[in-house]
């Protein structure tokens, strides 16, 4: 595979040629490829025996997963008194982590569904990856509210089923809405991910050597044979799933924010929560995608399909959503002041100067200041800078949820019930354990399934080849034996001419 070219750094161009090169966007697919080389390079990792690094990470992940199981066992066997939660801080790390993980999941759906509807081609290389992230993040998120029930073996009481108590769930409660929103989200994400995987699983089946692999992938591919009669239905089904996933992802975090916004607690009772939560979710999710894909693209050798163009585009989304989040913070404090309500006023003063103020200021640093580094092209296109910034944002978004939940609860209306919250090894360990569990799921996914949507990449390559043919762009995308210039693009839609290069700062 061709190495990633040194990326243009902002400096005074010496010639017109150099100036043009600076404005030219990095390609979506680097190097010359045909279907065969794409298959080979993208499937290679699945066939290779895992290396030492993979085993090391996997064992580490399994160790952490074991620790998670231990903390879960302690929680279930001895009750949630093992956590640091108390009254009034009845929601603490559990709900913080729930909201954090759900938020991370949202970037996956955003990338795969919303960007598909907006015809953003750069999504194609990263959508499978991001969808898997969604899936595992939602699984991690779902653990917390269930464990927090105290008696998780009765979790099925949440669903409306005929029972001997002749009672039904209270559907007017946002907590019930959460049950439906999160379970619908998990189901839809899983189905969307799998529908996209089917043609790739068929590719794996057909590219595999050995009967065992062929049987396993053949079974998983449902006997897909790429028939035109099937593609006819498949295309529209996939598009429709994307279409419904888009309002779904917005609704899920809106409903999560309703858990707080519909209560009367100062610090929670505010109308800005739904949009502010959704923006925060996208913000943290993109940061997580950067955190994961930067090492993955290097070790799995798919730098040619996840190029600097993708990373830069994601960093721009982080910058944008970061500013929306900052606006949300500002408005929260403004509302508190403008309301004239002494309790509201106090809660926000307490956030800025109370016992948890270091967490608040860490959040301000990570979420408000750090993203602004992405105004600079050098930061957007330098691997280590974006990776460190993404880590800060992950931390900052976790702090945000902690600040919202714990600082609002620990100083509520009655000073006599004020209290502090500190995690014990059980709820702290549960959080660390889910991080490892998430990582382990991800490693297994990277090893056994194509982490890049091969079918879509091959289709995109044809689209780009045709576009290059019609617009006279440099022939770097032109594969050997591609169709005639001017032929219609895949999906029968006219191929749009690539946008003219333009400045990107601002």
């Amino acid at each position: 595979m061709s190495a990633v070219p040194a990326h243009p750094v902002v400096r005074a161009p010496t010639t017109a040629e150099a100036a043009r090169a600076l404005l030219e966007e990095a390609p979506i697919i680097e190097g010359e490829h045909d279907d065969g080389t794409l298959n080979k390079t993208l499937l290679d990792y699945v066939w290779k025996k895992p290396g030492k690094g993979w085993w090391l990470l996997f064992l580490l992940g399994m160790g952490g997963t074991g620790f998670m199981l231990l903390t879960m066992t302690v929680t279930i066997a001895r009750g949630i008194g093992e956590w640091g939660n108390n009254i009034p801080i009845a929601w603490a790390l559990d709900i913080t982590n729930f909201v954090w993980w759900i938020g991370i999941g949202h970037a996956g759906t955003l990338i795969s569904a919303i960007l598909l509807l907006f015809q953003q081609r750069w999504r194609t290389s990263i959508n499978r990856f991001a969808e898997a992230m969604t899936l595992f993040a939602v699984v991690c998120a779902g653990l917390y509210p269930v464990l927090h029930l105290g008696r998780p073996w009765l979790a099925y009481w949440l669903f409306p089923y005929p029972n001997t108590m002749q009672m039904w769930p209270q559907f007017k409660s946002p907590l019930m809405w959460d049950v439906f929103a999160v379970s619908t989200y998990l189901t839809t994400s899983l189905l969307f991910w799998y529908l996209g995987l089917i043609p790739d699983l068929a590719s794996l089946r057909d590219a595999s050597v050995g009967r065992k692999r062929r049987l396993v992938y053949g079974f998983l591919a449902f006997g897909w044979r790429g028939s035109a009669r099937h593609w006819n239905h498949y295309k529209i089904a996939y598009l429709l799933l994307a279409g419904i996933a888009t309002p779904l992802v917005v609704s899920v975090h809106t409903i999560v924010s309703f858990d707080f916004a519909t209560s009367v607690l100062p610090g929670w009772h505010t109308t800005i929560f739904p949009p502010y939560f959704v923006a925060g979710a996208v913000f943290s999710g993109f940061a997580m995608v950067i955190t994961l894909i930067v090492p993955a693209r290097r070790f799995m050798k798919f730098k040619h399909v996840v190029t600097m163009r993708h990373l830069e585009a994601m960093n721009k989304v982080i910058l944008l959503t970061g500013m929306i989040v900052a606006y949300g913070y500002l408005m929260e404090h403004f509302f508190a002041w403008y309301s004239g309500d002494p309790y509201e006023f106090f809660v926000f003063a307490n956030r800025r100067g109370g016992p948890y103020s270091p967490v608040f200021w860490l959040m301000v640093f990570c979420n408000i200041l750090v993203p602004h580094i992405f105004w600079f092209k050098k930061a957007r296109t330098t691997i280590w800078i974006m990776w460190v910034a993404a880590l800060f944002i992950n931390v900052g978004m976790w702090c945000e949820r902690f600040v919202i939940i714990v600082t609002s609860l620990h100083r509520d209306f009655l000073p006599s019930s004020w209290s502090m919250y500190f995690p014990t090894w059980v709820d702290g360990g549960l959080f660390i354990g889910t991080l490892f569990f998430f990582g382990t799921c991800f490693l297994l996914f990277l090893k056994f399934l194509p982490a890049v949507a091969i079918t879509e990449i091959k289709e995109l390559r044809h689209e780009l080849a045709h576009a290059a043919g019609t617009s006279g762009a440099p022939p770097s995308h032109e594969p050997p034996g591609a169709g005639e210039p001017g032929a219609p693009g895949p999906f029968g839609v006219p191929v749009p001419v690539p946008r003219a290069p333009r400045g990107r700062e601002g």
Partner: protein
Amino acid sequence: MSTFVLGEFSTIDAVLKAAATLRDARVGTLDAYSPYPLPGMEEALGLHRSKVPLMALACGVSGACGGYLLQWWCNAYDYPLNVGNRLTGLTVGWPAMIPITFESGILATALSLFFGTIVFFFKLPRPYHPVFESEAFRSASLDAFWISVERDDDDAAAVAPILEKLRALGARRVETVRGPTE
């Protein structure tokens, strides 16, 4: 038992042209296979517009209605919860029921799009198909384009001209396979 006459093509233009030509020649039931959807193949094969959206719409609307009725039946009819004295008819406290109504609609749509499409439109899961009898057919999901002509008979005299035609249209490989389709 059906006979499938298969031809492998290396370019999209060739396979599209072959599909259109064979369709005009009326040699049997046609199908094409490709690693990704091909532009213009529906027209070449004369496929109808997919009915998947209709199914999704029907399921989505039923799911949303079902979700609303479930909440109404549980909280207002079977075990009425009198909150804020909103207790009359079907519209009892309806704003609070919108989120779950919406989610039920989405859930039903997603389930129908996945399972409905795979089971009713694709007729999958179906690990065996006669075309898989051909070892070379593996390339259909990787980097080549295939056309199949399906015939109920096993008449070599009828198959020979089709093979000839496929070769003439530029197929780099032709084959005949036979197997049960049901």
